[in-house]
């Protein structure tokens, strides 16, 4: 659990982060969204003390984050940034081993962990381990960056626009990978982005920041349904709201009884994709199948449209 209490950061006269308090539950993903200059990156960097706060306290599992020297604290927290920040003069394997080496793990344990992470990220340790970062594609570099952040099995992972430099298709894949790995390791992730789409997709909770202040901190559905201010409303994007709301739910939860013609939709498709499929195929309803291929019922345009309406 991460407790942020009354955190502020001032540089001379300008206040970058203004009295922010929030609690991040363990094993969840909190996404901090905001425009550039909203203080979201500064807030993130105060958690691992790359930036020292002017006022306030941050506690990790109950312990003040100032109870350790900064560099020791940072070794226990994963850190991944936009443009990956890989060390160009070190091989992929050496890059991933950075924090374990700093922590003084023995060589065999480091190698085991590096191989495990590379395999997890679909990078063959034999082929990619000895390469240098420039020999990798952008997507591979990003994966190595995240693998490096996870190397020492941190409970908390901080990510500053980790997918910002990727093209849309690779970004999608990277997001799915991260969600899968978060489930697998149970890591608490705090992710900074300016992309509301990404926030709704990734976040268990979303924190919206504007001019250094925390404007709203809530579940995605609530942010979409009840934006706390005009700023949040703009950020959400008025015309996108119903679709974003739908993207939160799975088809499984919208199944109605009855049969329908056409190609079946898998139950774990997002409701948004299902609606798109219905509209595109020109049918009022489509059958739904479970993971085992058995029919579960059908999903209808009318049913989905009702779900896209503002929750009351």
């Amino acid at each position, binding site marked *: 659990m991460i407790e942020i209490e009354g955190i502020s950061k001032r540089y001379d006269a300008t206040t970058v982060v203004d009295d922010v308090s929030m609690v991040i539950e363990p094993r969840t993903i909190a996404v901090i969204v905001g425009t550039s200059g909203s203080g979201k990156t500064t807030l993130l960097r105060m958690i*691992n003390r790359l930036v020292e706060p002017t006022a306030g306290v941050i506690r990790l599992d109950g312990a003040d984050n100032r109870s350790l020297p900064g560099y020791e604290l940072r070794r226990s927290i994963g850190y991944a940034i936009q443009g990956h*920040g890989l060390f*160009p003069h070190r091989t992929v394997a050496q890059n991933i081993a950075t924090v374990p080496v700093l922590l003084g793990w023995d060589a065999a344990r480091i190698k085991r962990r590096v191989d495990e992470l590379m395999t997890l990220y679909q990078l063959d340790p034999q082929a990619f381990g000895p390469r240098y970062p420039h020999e990798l594609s952008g997507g591979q570099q990003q994966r190595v960056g995240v693998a*490096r952040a996870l190397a020492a099995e941190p409970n908390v992972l901080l990510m500053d626009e980790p997918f910002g430099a990727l093209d849309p298709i690779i970004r999608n894949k990277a997001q799915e990978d991260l969600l899968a790995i978060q489930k697998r390791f149970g890591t608490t992730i705090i992710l900074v982005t300016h992309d509301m789409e990404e926030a709704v997709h990734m976040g268990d909770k979303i924190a919206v920041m504007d001019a250094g202040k925390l404007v709203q901190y809530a579940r995605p559905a609530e942010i979409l349904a009840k934006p706390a201010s005009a700023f949040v409303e703009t950020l959400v994007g008025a015309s996108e709201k119903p679709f974003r709301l739908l993207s939160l739910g799975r088809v499984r939860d919208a199944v109605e009884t009855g049969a329908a013609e056409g190609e079946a939709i898998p139950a774990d498709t997002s409701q948004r994709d299902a609606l798109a499929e219905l509209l595109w195929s020109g049918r009022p309803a489509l059958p739904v199948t479970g993971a085992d291929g058995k029919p579960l019922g059908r999903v209808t345009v009318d049913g989905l449209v009702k779900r896209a309406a503002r929750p009351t």
Partner: protein
Amino acid sequence: MTTRFDKLGVVIAAIVAYAAFAAPFATLRANRIVPGEARSILEALPPTLGPLLLAVVVVAAVVALLKTPLILRLAASVVALAALALLIGVAGGFLTPEGNSFARISPASGFWLLIFAFTLLLADGLTRLNLSPSARIAVLVVTAAAIGMLLVSGSWNSLSILKEYANRADSFWAEGSKHVTLALGSLAAAVIAGLPLGILCHRVEKLRAGVLNVLNIIQTIPSIALFGLLIAPLGWVATHVPGAASLGVRGIGTAPAFVALFLYSLLPVVANTVVGLAGVPRAANDAARGMGMTERQRLFSVEFPLAFPVILTGIRIVLVQNIGLATIAALIGGGGFGVFVFQGVGQTAMDLVLLGAVPTVALAFAAAIILDAVIEMTSTRRREAQPA
């Protein structure tokens, strides 16, 4: 017309034509300081060897002139250079009158131009070969060994420079080692002081402009003036600081030369350290901090390795510059090869000037080749490492 000319070959052929047929090959003087008489290739060599040398250089020039295979061009340049190197020694023996130990035979402008032309051809060929750094060092070693063998074999002993050397063999090596000590010692001192200063300038922005400007100004002081300026303070130190005089600190001599070379060396070392560190990607630095490296770990395992090739470039500049500048140290009694240069100038004995100048140039040249190779070896990874 199918024949096409090589661009550089045209220049080389023109130089060879002038040097072989119009310029003197060797100079004969009755003694070491009088003006000499010019001798052409045919006059300077025995009747069989003269035409042979002419033939060799003409054929080699034609090879250079036309678009010929690389290997042929390299072979032509090596054969021509070897023939010139061997035959100038023969000319020395041939031209020296029997039993005359005052006469001096020295290579003349024609010889030097021929050497220049074929070295150009050789260098061009080697560049086109795109040799690896270690291969370049190997070529340097082979060349040095070949020249060393010619020197040891005595085939050049009849030439004037070596006669000057024979008269000064002991002091030549003493001054030589003083020269190298001066150049390398001041470089080492500059690196020891300049690296931390460069790191400091990188970290403390306020300091940067000030320090670099001061070093820039020092760089613009003419060397002789700097020696002069150092006499007073070093003299003061020698008399007032206990133990300084016994360490060799004096107003004139090695100490001011060392200090001056050190001061000249600082700018390239500090400036390149600053530039090298500034070139380290921001994201790499941020990641290093974010993953829990201490400042020292970040400096030694991220910033330094990434800045190293740039710093090494600064060290190369300093080394080549110092080997040349150390010549002037002789003016204030600092020793080095400059001693022969200034003695030679004083006596209008050109051969003595060359005895000081040739080894200096050779040293600087070798230092440049070696350090360039080292820089390339260390930066291969870095260049690959730049984000695409």
